[in-house]
């Protein structure tokens, strides 16, 4: 189990609910209490369909489900494997993987949009599977191979799906694009010859307010085709 937060008023509600009313509000489901209730390892293994990675050291990796580990309440130093390289960071236990990437490691490609796993803009890969980085604590990503949009390709050397996004104009303001791209990249890795319906289901959780969806479908089909050497 994770320790109690050092501040009992700690909330992920971002001040939308006023401090003065908070104490009367009764039990509230925050991301933190949700993840606590589910168990840290279970949150990773059960909810996002990823197996915990092989154990290396106690610091590098979380213990198996059910085993006790205390971290915090202060900042902890640990290492994450991101885009194939180890990255050491010092963060409070409550910092999400998305917060760690953006605010501590300078990887700002993944975006914070809904902050509750409802829009997909923060999608990264954990051991190759797409996950919403706003719903995972950074410490729970230890022992997993994390890939972000920055690891998929660069402007000079884009991955096929990124090239297809540009060619088909599968983006407008571009804020959903990193998450959308990562979701499709994972889907294409799992299914190199998808139908349009399969692509739609793979990105059904990625919201684009500009409405780039028709071109997203085209881009995904084009990328799949070119990866199969038919493009």
């Amino acid at each position, binding site marked *: 189990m994770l320790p109690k937060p050092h501040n009992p008023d*700690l*909330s992920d509600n*971002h*001040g*939308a609910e*006023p*401090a*003065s009313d908070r104490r009367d509000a009764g039990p509230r489901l925050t991301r933190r209490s949700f993840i606590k209730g589910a168990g840290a390892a279970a949150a990773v293994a059960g909810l996002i369909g990823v197996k915990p990675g092989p154990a290396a050291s106690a610091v590098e990796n979380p213990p198996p489900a059910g085993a006790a580990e205390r971290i915090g309440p202060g900042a902890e130093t640990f290492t994450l494997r991101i885009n194939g390289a180890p990255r050491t960071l010092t963060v*409070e236990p*409550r910092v999400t993987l998305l*917060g760690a990437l*953006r*605010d501590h490691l*300078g*990887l*700002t*490609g993944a*975006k914070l*949009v*809904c*902050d*509750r796993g*409802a*829009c997909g803009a923060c999608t990264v890969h954990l051991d190759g599977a797409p996950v919403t980085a706003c719903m995972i604590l950074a410490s729970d990503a230890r022992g997993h191979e994390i890939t972000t*949009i*920055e690891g*998929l*390709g*660069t*402007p000079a050397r*884009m991955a096929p799906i*990124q*090239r297809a*996004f*540009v*060619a088909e*104009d599968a*983006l*407008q*303001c*571009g*804020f*959903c*694009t990193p998450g959308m*791209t990562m979701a499709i990249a994972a889907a294409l890795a799992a299914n190199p010859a998808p139908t349009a319906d399969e692509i*739609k*289901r793979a*990105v*059904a*959780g*990625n*919201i*684009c*307010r*500009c*409405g*780039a*969806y*028709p*071109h997203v479908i085209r881009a995904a089909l084009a990328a799949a085709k070119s990866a199969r050497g038919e493009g």
Partner: protein
Amino acid sequence: MARRVTLTLGFAGGTREVAVVIPDAEPTPWQWGEKFSVVGVPTPRADGPLKATGRAPYTYDVQLPGMLHGAILRSPYPHARVRGVDLSAARKLDGVRAALDRSGATVRFAGQEVAAVAATSPEIARDALALIRVDYAPMPFVAAMDEAMRPDAALVFERGSNVAAPIVNAVGNVAAGLETAAATHEAVYTTPVQTHVSLETHGAVASWRGDALTVWCSTQGIFGVRDDLAVHFSLPPENVRVITAYLGGGFGSKFGAGHEVIFAAELARMAGAPVKLMLPRADEHLATGNRPSSSQRVRIGAARDGALTAIELVQHGSGGIGGGSGSSGPYLTLYRCANLRTEERNVYLNAGPSSAMRAPGWPQGCFALELAIDELARKLGIDRLELRRRNNPSPVRALEFEIGARAFRWNDRSRAPQSRGPLKRGIGVASAAWHGIGASGPQAQCVALRDGRVQVRIGTQDIGTGTRTIIAMVAAEELGLPLDRVTAEIGDTRYLFSLPSGGSLTAPSTTPAVRQAAAHLKRKLMRLAAPLLGADSDDLIIRGGVISARAAPNRSLTFAELCRRIPGDSLAADGEHVPNYAGYSLTQAGCQFAGVEVDCETGIVRVTDFVAVHDAGVIVDPLTARSQVNGGIIMGVGFALFEERRIDPQLGVMVNPTMDDYKLPGILDTPEIQVFFVEVANGITNTGVLGLGEAVHVAATAAIGCAVADAIGAPVRDLPLTPDRVLAALGQA
């Protein structure tokens, strides 16, 4: 000095010669049949690779050394006096560097700003908000329009009524028109409050150096933010620099320096360190603007042949503590009618303020008017498309109806027998209009560099429409260069002034300034080339990056060679948007066709397909233009089927300020979309480019509403068209 030119203007349905007087500084406007080499070619957007690889630096991604994180405390009460704010505990929290409050203010909606803090991490900033103690004196409030309109209602503002004076437009005599009608129809239609839900929330990063302020801001108008900050801090405008390199959506909600921008700058000054303050999602729903609600009583009548004899709208709508809820635009524009009257009243509520949202007022008005037209068509026994054709004032839209009906197979589909199963199919059509003709103000600078590249510098911003790309395309076209030689440098108040990106202004207002600047630069470059080619500069032409004399095409010079002869570092020329000419047409027409499938057992509506036909003058980039059309339709799907700000009437608090309870359309809700452009050479500027973003959103919701009524044989007159409403309408069908 001015010169008179005769231009061939018009569209595929007909052209005519139009005499236009233009200033000498202007290049001759593009005409019908203009031969382009860059413009009109589907072109992937210039910043696509940065966006697709996560490298595009949005405001939200700006990181500065020593940067603090800001957060805002908001009122839980819809109406209250803030008697006192105690920041002491928050200030004592380790990591908090600055705090401010609005003690003494009156808050008029749940979510209004009360205090703000800056701390060393976003998490600590949120902790600090929880430590702020506020003494509120709650006051009576109104959260629903019918309640607010009662004589004894609690007042939102300290004045006699929550209902503003009516705005009336009238021609002819509606009563007489209804009297002579062969068929009449009257009904009330309602639309809810929709929020913009830009994926990048409002916010800014503010950094001071002495009395100079630099702000990275998620805004649709960098100069408006600059001016607001200059006024707020009593600084000369040149001391404020605003940068918007990339913008994660706006849709009308991001003009001027909002509270979050002012707070970021104030906190940064107090803390002596840069502050980033980007709003959480809930705040974005609550406080940064919305499309007002509407309740529209429509009376409409037509003669036996379908000619409209009267249209009347009596409307009230609410933008919370904001105004501007009118929806008369489509009533006054879309159809020919001699007897026309609209009456609009804004109703104030204790709810978050309205702001402009993609074609303000038009999607609401279009939904009600077009559904009413359909209901009238049924009474008259006239095909719904045919009734629209008979009352259509626009020759461009007449052609668009033809193109759209063919692509949509309107005639076949309208005669197809309805399915006997639970899935009923329906079709609808609606007219669109807009006036994306641009405005004066923008100035551009075109700079040839010694290395053979050209930069276009202009203080506009790319809201996601592809502004960077079309600006470069227009300059490349004028300069006779391949597109890869030209880049657009935008999003910084250090460049010359441009207008905010709203009102479909950007493309029509920036491209003429850019083209004029490019033409001026070309003239300077030709003067530089003339002695090198031994020709008069007026006889030189540049095509594909090669300069030659018309008379002696075998002697030539590449653009790169010429640029190496530039004395000094670069050669620059400016251009401006001159006032629009009286060209061919000052409006733009469109129409959209929608197909739906309604499950009569569940009430669930699925939009299956769309055909959109639009006029946007000269289409610079058909690829990004098509993206805009898709987006306008998909946002219309959201307004039609899902989106509604819900306020608890007992508490006056929004109950769905998230992205799961406030549902946006996703890829599974997206119909098949066919897009057609009817290009019109309008000659109103030197490019004749029109704005597209709003025109393509006006009719989408209406077309869906009409299709649903067609599918189930009964209109659903209230948006969104949720399953419960569809089932209720079926019960009455």
